[in-house]
């Protein structure tokens, strides 16, 4: 009885602790938090997205602020060897239709970017790695490095004091480039992630330059629980107060399926030949056993 009651009390206490405090959360360091983040929300190996990109400048109010709306498709394929392939193709407005970006990131983090402007007639232009340090991707407030994810091994994660905002608790993680390559290639001296304690999803990132001066803020909105611990934001806003400008990416459609991002499409030739969106051909027929399709909102 005594043993039972002691055991019962211990079990009940353990349940209570496990209920109130996420396992090991109190003890997690920066790297630990980020490991949890990557584990839960790591880049799905095969993602196809249809996005709307809205560029807002700081002048005027309401509708007057809308400057430019673009529609694009984004293909992402992560291979087992750690290499990553991205492709972005603009569908609208009409005059930029077919313009594309192809990025190959090797397992060692080396990235090669190629730009295709259809109006230049099959001329491909290699783009300096990362699109150029401090550069802005196609007139947006995103740098190329903001869009292609990060290699955890290349960065050092330091946990700062936790934060509560709007009754949501956050881990605060400062990210510093660690490897020589990362130091050389990144425009940022530091990034600060605000990671939600409840789902380990990065809700906000503040970017600082190499002199640790604030540059811009990225926030994730309309978060959806895709499957299990996997969450995705439907909207990403990059606010660049210094430029009085904001860029909003809204995911209109997202499909997790290798069939949507077959390996052979990540080539210049495919980009040049198949760049135009064909609603009859896309989405491609889903092969049996492919990942679940996440319907658009």
């Amino acid at each position: 009885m005594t043993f039972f009651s002691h055991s019962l009390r211990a079990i009940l206490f353990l349940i209570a602790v496990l209920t109130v405090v996420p396992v090991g959360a109190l003890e997690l360091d920066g790297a630990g938090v980020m490991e949890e983040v990557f584990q839960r929300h790591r880049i799905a190996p095969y993602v196809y997205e249809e996005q709307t990109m809205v560029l807002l400048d700081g002048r005027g109010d309401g509708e007057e602020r809308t400057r430019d709306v673009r529609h694009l498709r984004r293909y992402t394929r992560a291979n087992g060897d750690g290499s990553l392939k991205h492709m972005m193709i603009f569908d609208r407005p009409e005059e930029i239709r077919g313009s594309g970006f192809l990025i190959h990131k090797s397992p060692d983090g080396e990235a090669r970017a190629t730009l295709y402007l259809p109006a230049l007639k099959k001329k491909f232009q290699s783009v300096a790695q990362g699109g150029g340090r401090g550069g802005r991707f196609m007139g947006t407030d995103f740098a190329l490095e903001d869009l292609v994810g990060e290699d955890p091994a290349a960065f050092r994660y330091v946990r700062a004091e936790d934060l509560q905002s709007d009754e949501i608790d956050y881990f605060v993680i400062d990210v510093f480039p660690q490897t020589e390559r990362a130091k050389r290639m990144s425009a940022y001296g530091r990034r600060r992630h605000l990671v939600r304690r409840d789902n380990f999803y990065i809700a906000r990132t503040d970017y600082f330059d190499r002199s640790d001066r604030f540059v811009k803020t990225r926030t994730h909105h309309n978060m959806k629980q895709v499957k299990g611990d996997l969450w995705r934001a439907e909207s990403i806003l990059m606010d660049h107060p210094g430029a009085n400008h904001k860029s909003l990416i809204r995911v209109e459609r997202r499909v997790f399926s290798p069939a949507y991002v077959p390996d052979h499409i990540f080539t210049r030739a495919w980009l040049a030949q198949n760049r135009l969106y064909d609603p009859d051909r896309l989405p491609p027929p889903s092969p049996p056993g492919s990942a679940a399709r996440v319907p658009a909102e």
Partner: protein
Amino acid sequence: MFQRILSFGARRRLASLIFLLVCSCAAATGLPRLAVDTGFNSLISDTHPDKAVYDRVSKEFGSDNATIVFLRDPELWSVGKLAALDRLHRRLEKLPFVERVESLFSLQSIREAEGELAAQALLPEVPKEQAEVERARDDALANPLFVGNFISKDGAATAINLTVREDRADDNFDRKATDAIEAALSPARGDFEQLFQVGPPRINAELKSSLFDDLILLGPLSTLALTLSILLFFRSGFAALIPLITASLSILWTFGMMGHAGIPLNILSAMLPSLILVIGSTEDAHMLAAYFQGVSGEDEEVAGDRKKAVGFMLRHMGVPLVLTVLTTGLGFASNLFSDIGLIRDFALASTFAIFINGVITLLVVPMILATFGPLSNKLFAAHAKSKGMTGALVRFFDYAATHFSGLTLAVTGGLCLFFLYFAAQLYVTNDPLSYFRTDHPLVAQTHRVHRDLAGIKVFYITLESDREKAFQLPENLEKLRKIKKFLDSQKVFDKSLSVADHIGLVNREFHGGNPYYDRIPASRELAAQYLMFFHRRDLEKVLSRDLKRANIVVRHNITDSHTLNRYVSELKKAVNEIAGSEIRTHVVGENLMVNRSAETLLVAQVESLGLLLFIIFLMMSAMFTSFKGGLIALIPNLVPITLMFGFMGLAGIPLNPGTAMVAVIAVGIAIDDTIHLLSRYNELCRRTSDYAEAVRQTVHEEAAPVISTSLALVLGFGMLLFSNFNIVAQFGALSAATMLFAIISDLLITPIIISRVRLVGLSQILEMDVSRKVLEESPLFQDMSYYQARKAVLISKLGEYRTGDVLVEQGTSGRSMYLILSGRVEVHRREEAGGEGSIHLATLESGEIFGEIGYIQESERTADVVAVEPVQALIFNYEKLKKDLKFFPNTVAKLNFNISRILGERLAEVVGGLKANKISAKGAWPDEEK
């Protein structure tokens, strides 16, 4: 009535004092509300047609007024210097009023190198190695968007452009912003060979600080000039004090009114204290001179009596004072209708100042003199002829007018033609930088920016289309290139920037940096795809969000408004032609509107001058009861203005908001002396039929006050040369020169002209103390209106006789006829010449005439006419009226007609008398008829 108003200050001293104190206290409460305006808006015409377009364009593409921090150093492209530049950039970013900082550290570079296109920050951070520095330098110098805007061709100079968020609610914003920027620059002073800021906040702050310096400097200088002048011409400390009191009160009231009325102090009204001191003091000087003449003069009744001397002063100076205040005030008021706020505000304040100074002078001067006035002044103890330099000048003018009047007029005419030729070469400028003296650091620094980069003055060429995304179309982009080519062909503008340059740059870099491809691509799609390389920030000054409007930013350093306006006009025409009918074009900019307003300066100047001259012509015509009088009063004042404009053209002094006012103000002041001269001449003409002598005497009597007040004005205006502002100094110099020209004109030209005319003053007519009954009942004035009769009286000479005075002596000859205004005379006929016995023929009273036969025909007087009590009589001299016939034909003709009728009646009476055997001797009065 009029004299009672004028003498209020002397009669009601306590009431006047209370009134002055109350008004002064009320004015003092307005002083804290007095605002200072040195903004450029006051230089722009309110009705400028481009204003609305400019407001829309600047809202869309941002203000054309940027503050530039300029740096120059031969070692600029080194790790250390760039680190200092970066620190400076960061310090400037932290300033709360700075919206945006653009420097080498914020620029986005697009460049193809080794087969890769790099679209990235030119300097994402301070380079650690010199190789990185060199790479960035090469990128910067290869970028046509940067060269001239951010970096000099030699790479040694660069600019940090600041977009400043103005806080117009804060009066001290410009100073605070300038000081804050200076504080940010200060730690970097040792890092660069040259480092300074230029731009609107600094220009405004410098204008404001120079304005306050002017207020502090010019007021005391003018006080000194005034005190010296008064001391020199009156030799009386007391006399020097009075203008200071009236001027101080006038300044207080004027600034108080400005505070209450919300009229801001600007760079022109900063010279108001000086102007009030100088111009206001001339009235005080005239009044003081009259007072001293009264209190120390020959009239025993007035001499030594303050109150009577004040009365004497007001009788002699009251009307001219009111008239001169009116004309001077009109001179300033003629600028009230200027489109330029700067001038209009000054006109409002200065007109008020002149009129209020007149009121204060009329109250204060009699009040003080009646209470504390000195009882004598040696200089005025007796009528003294002009001595020294004044005397020499008078003798010279007299000689020239007497012996070479024709030649003098011919030479003057020739000089006027000569100067008119140069006046035609006048040019106009309204550039705020030209307000500063050429040695001002701001001017030199602005030139430095111009030499190394491009001028800091900016305007926009905006093209608008109704077509969707019009400026993605190659044909429209090509139009922007063509406009750029035209701008380059004009060779006066430093730099232009449009979206065509951005697209040309990307096209070039997509073709390996080949300069051939720095052109507009053939397809709309490619232009659109190139534009994706630019962040909205990079394009906001050159392309609208909807791509329907494109803007070309043009930088220049032209200060001559006329040149700028000419090239802009040429440009507008070309832009319209290039743009075609589907695209609307605007060439706008605050800088352009400010300079465009300069053109209106010229028109406004002519209009104001014309209006003023017309009003003065009407006033003088009324004053001298003839249009001829109005014209004569104008001529001596047109000469100095012609010379002044010619002098401006000859010396290359531009017409600007300062110099544009000289002519009207100078006319307003210079006419005062003409009024004094003509008034005196008229008075003297009543005493003599020798008008040449009257002219000489006028000049002798008026030369001293004319020269002294004019020299005081010259000295006072000359003090403005010490102003911190070019335009104020030019205004002072030209006004002083015009005053000198006016002295010559008044004392040389005026006498020659007036010697050929005879005028009657309206004031004389109105002030004339003649019994209405006499005028209405006298047969001499039969069929004449009351006004005509008074004018006829004034053409005559007034004689005043004491009891026992002989008006006409038997046996003498004379051509004068008499009309008795008051008193009585007796007519006696002596039996023999030299005999003692005489027959009393008649006793004549007011309204009766005698001596009319002698008037008609020169003949011997046949009786004595003796005053039996004090008599006032009008004397109509045949020779004088003969001369006056050409000046007053109507009046003299009527007089002669009436004289003929009187003689006719006399003849009838004589014939009747003969019949009755009661004939009296010819020319004698038939006393039995009386």
